[in-house]
């Protein structure tokens, strides 16, 4: 739970959200990310650190550059809760449909 909440809190910041959305298009280095955003490169690095800590993005080094990409595992965690909710809700919906769909003449059908 804490993990998911950290993920969502990390995305609460609009700059972090746009960084995250850019990374959703493909991996990028800090410099490339900073060029497209109205914030300084150190600020981008700080935002990336928060995204990384929350499990939403990960980085690997290519020579002297750090390439950032979305961490699919972090995203999976983020969505897992709502996913489980719908599984349960739809299962319960199906039970209700079947309970109320008895054939005509069946006395159990109100």
């Amino acid at each position, binding site marked *: 739970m804490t993990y*998911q909440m950290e993920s969502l809190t990390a995305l609460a910041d609009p700059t972090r959200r746009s960084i995250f959305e850019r990374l*959703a298009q493909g991996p990028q280095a800090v410099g490339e990310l900073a060029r497209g955003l109205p914030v300084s490169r150190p600020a981008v690095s700080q935002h990336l650190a928060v995204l990384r800590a929350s499990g939403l993005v990960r980085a690997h080094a290519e020579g002297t550059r750090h390439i950032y990409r979305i961490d699919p595992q972090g995203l999976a965690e983020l969505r897992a809760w709502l996913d489980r909710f719908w599984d*349960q809700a*739809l299962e319960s919906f199906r039970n209700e449909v079947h309970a109320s769909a008895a054939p005509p003449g069946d006395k159990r059908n109100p």
Partner: protein
Amino acid sequence: MNDTNAAAPIRKTIRVEATPEHAFAVFTERIGRWWPPHYGLLSQPRHELILEPGIGGRWYERAADGTELTWGKVLAWEPPQRLVLAWQIDGTYQYRPDFMVEVEVRFLADGPGATRVELEHRNFERYGEYAAGMLQALDSAAGWSLMLEGFAAEVARAD
């Protein structure tokens, strides 16, 4: 940028043994009977969950003492094929008219007397700054109990 990995909607499909008309009716008219009971946002036990038919229809929860909490509204009402709901509860448990995530449901005939129900829950990244509160609200009522129910169901199936 609406259809990225980041914004990938949740999609669920379930098949029911009923006509699309019946499935649509149960989904809408009987939502209070199948919506998981502990997923209420009122501080007291939920008495009713109501979805008013038609575009603009209100989707709301009511406690036994009459207290109501609006969840959202109907954006598309096309019985028996399609329903789109706006879910307008932010992370502070409040209804906010300027906030919404969408839930689209399609009811597709799947052979005689059967329907494939396809659900898409999208835009949930919009919870943004409200997300922590939203998850907290949901979790307080349902986190562990939901997981344990899922576990129990899985155990039963494994028999």
